[in-house]
């Protein structure tokens, strides 16, 4: 062969695991254990959950962070060491040491990871069983997702709201469903997530551990307004929660006894039916961007579709949204408002929008 030696001559004996290699293995191993412990204990990624379930998830997460850090350092450590140590010298055309395997080593690195994942599974199962255990004193709230709003119903009080209020420290059982496509109810600060699926009721427990206001986020792609399908959960001490419930009930009774002025009613309907999720309207504090803004719609509506008066246009746009799509906006408005809204609500909303000049 013209090539000097492209394979190692038989009998050559270079130590595969010399002192430098042993030293590196020890340093990598110690670093992995130390860094894994530190990262697991500190867990800079996920902490301060505001529910008892979330706190348990965070603790489990810390353990995973610790183990993942250790494995990360072992793999990257050996990789980097090999890259530095075993780089070929420019003129070296020889081959490396022909090692084809080592049964003990292979059994070791099959068995140890297997053991680790079994332990992680058992610990995960224990946390799962714990966070899903029902408390006898549960309060039930029924949650309905729809494009693109959340609706909460308190069966104990026959009360329906657009934001979730729950008492501090009491376990709340959420019974979640969807009125249309799939959604997912997620409170990031509480680490709680569950899908909302039509024709099905899914459940999840929350026990809030810190008062405050936390965003509710839709985590399952549900259409054009998915990104803006948000609400919030308000956690307050039990007495404050009871005051809120009574205030809501009082408002509901007053509304039943004496209809509010048209403007207040309009604002309420605008938000109740989820118009706010997609259509910006300053008067109703709505900031949606999926559909056209409706500020000043009362002055413009008559000029949009030839032959339609302002009132006809607005009514048609609500109950048959596909008849006319504002240029540059997606044709995604739900077409079922004629079924979902009472005639009175529809007319009240049309009148309210007509007044937006």
């Amino acid at each position, binding site marked *: 062969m013209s*090539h000097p030696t492209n394979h190692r001559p038989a009998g050559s004996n270079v130590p595969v695991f010399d002192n430098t290699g042993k030293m590196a293995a020890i340093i990598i191993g110690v670093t992995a254990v130390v860094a894994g412990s530190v990262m697991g204990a500190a867990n800079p990624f996920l902490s301060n959950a505001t529910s008892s379930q979330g706190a348990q998830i965070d603790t489990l*997460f810390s353990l995973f962070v610790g183990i993942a850090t250790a494995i*990360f350092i072992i793999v990257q450590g050996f990789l980097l060491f090999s890259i530095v140590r075993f*780089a070929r010298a420019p003129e070296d055309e020889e081959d490396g040491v022909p*090692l084809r395997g080592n049964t003990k080593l292979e059994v070791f690195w099959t068995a140890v990871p297997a053991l680790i*994942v079994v332990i992680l599974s058992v610990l995960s199962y224990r946390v799962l069983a714990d966070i899903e255990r029902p408390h006898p004193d549960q309060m039930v709230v029924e949650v309905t997702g729809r494009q693109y709003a959340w609706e909460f119903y308190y069966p104990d009080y026959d009360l329906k709201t657009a934001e979730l209020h729950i008492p501090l420290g009491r376990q709340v059982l959420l019974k979640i469903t969807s009125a249309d496509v799939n959604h997912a109810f997620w409170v990031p600060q509480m680490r709680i997530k569950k899908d909302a699926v039509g024709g099905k009721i899914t459940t999840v427990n929350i026990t809030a551990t810190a008062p405050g206001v936390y965003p509710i986020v839709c985590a399952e792609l549900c*259409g054009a307004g998915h990104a803006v399908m948000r609400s919030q959960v308000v956690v307050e001490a039990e007495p404050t929660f009871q005051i809120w419930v009574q205030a809501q009930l009082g408002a509901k009774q007053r509304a039943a006894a004496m209809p509010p002025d048209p403007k207040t009613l309009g604002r309420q309907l605008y938000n109740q039916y989820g118009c706010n999720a997609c259509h910006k309207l300053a008067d109703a504090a709505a900031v949606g961007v999926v559909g056209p803004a409706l500020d000043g719609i009362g002055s413009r509506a008559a000029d949009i579709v030839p032959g339609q008066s302002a009132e006809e246009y607005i009514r048609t746009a609500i109950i048959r949204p596909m008849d006319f799509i504002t240029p540059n906006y997606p044709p995604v408005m739900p077409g079922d408002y004629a079924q979902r809204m009472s005639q009175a609500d529809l007319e009240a909303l049309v009148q309210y929008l007509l007044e937006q000049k």
Partner: protein
Amino acid sequence: MTADTVVGTGLVRHGGRKFSDYLIFNTDHKVIGIQYLVLAFVFFLFGGALAGLIRAQLATPDAQLLTGSSYNVTLTLHGTVMIFLWIIPAFVGAANYVVPLMIGANDMAFPRLNAVSFWLLVPGGLLMLVSFAVGGAESGWTAYPPLSVTTPIGQTLWALALQFIGFSSIFGAINFLVTIFNLRAPGMGLTQMPLLAWAVAATSIIILLGTPVLSGALLMLILQRWLGAQFFTPAGGGNPLLWQNLFWFYSHPAVYIMILPGFGIISEVLPIFARKPIFGYKLIAFSSMAIAVFGFLVWAHHMFTSGMDPFLRVPFMVTSMIIAVPTGVKIFSWLATIWAGKLRFTTSMMFGLAFISMFVIGGLSGIFLASVPIDIHVQDTYFVVAHLHYVLFGGSVMSIFAGLYLWFPKITGRMLDERLGRLHFWLTFMGFNLTFFPQHLAGLQGMPRRVYTYPPELWALNLLSSIGAFLMAIAVLPFLYNALRSLVAGKVAGPNPWRAFGLEWTVSSPPPVHNFPTPPVVEGDPYGYGERPLPGTTGVAAPAPGMAGGE
């Protein structure tokens, strides 16, 4: 007629010597391999452009570039194109080109079926583009009903396009299995096969068992959209979770369709540039098969928050954890392969080493996702987006590039420029990590996936991601320039520029039309570094200076 003559002149030919040979129904596996690779790369550029749009929209919390449906269409097409028209066909193309050569076969077992597979992919890709032109699918690559039955016509074309692509895949899998198990050169037992052949066999088994389930589910979706069937909508007695079960029964194994060939490529690249035999051949081959089996037992981990049977989450958690073991075995075996080697940092090797480094991050985040309680928090967030990109880009795409840099000289007869290669590598590596590492944190802090707007406190992380994506886009330019320039002006490679074992390196570059003018001689597995001399290397010059990168 010699072994190097193109057969046929019309629209049906065998062999590629002229440009027009590559544009028609050609039954030569090498031509088909190139057809797949070029088409897939075009879709990679397209899918990358879509990713650029997504990152431009997300560079600031309230940008107005792409909102609502147009954003959803973009992310749907990005995911679908990258998975079904880039990663999967790129692997099919690479395997098509090299596997018959590696096992000493003159072609695939069914050359015409092979061409049919490719020509099913073309209408599939075109239909996908047409779906975009008429408004597009907008329910994500996962297409969960009921959303996917209420969206406009683009969704139907999307499903039809996937039917074409699915059948292309199934035919290809049959072809690979028959080729690998029946056309090996005399003397090549199963344990003398290159590990890429094992990986492609395992992949083909998954495709054969899994893809028909996707085809069935897509047909149900099409029937529901066209004929008002009610498989997936509760109002008509259907169940939205039925789709999720069928879809993930295919699509989780599909994750392994997208990574096993990458494992195979890495198992070829490392021995060549470490000048050592692969460590633990049998365990690596066995773990590919173990993944092919276990891959079918983990699908419901995508549904932990869906309201599936609460108890069943537990066995699926355990299987999802256990499947990490065969993957871990491979990583440790690769580390042992480079240990005490004589490492040569060619671009191919750098992508190969980066694969190990990045894939392990994706593997570790996968363990988090397998744990039901942790998954409750991170499911459907940017943590998942980060995880899947560490696996599919840090893993699959890195391995595709490792393979392209390795086999480009074989395929074209010319060397790629190593300096441009290193530029491509470092820009990709840095851009990739800058793009995707911060996404873990964004997800943990409350950013769901598939949103065009987010709270301002997540701005910094998203801006980093967008800057990284910009770097990744730039990174493609040196590669494109390098590939095109090297085609005409690269150094002549010769049959075996890397001094590698493996039958593909015993024939000329590019190989003769009918591969092996004389039957190949199999001396053992293709990992004999340090054990036996390279066959037929008499007279082969020292490596060309241009290829000795990294020093």
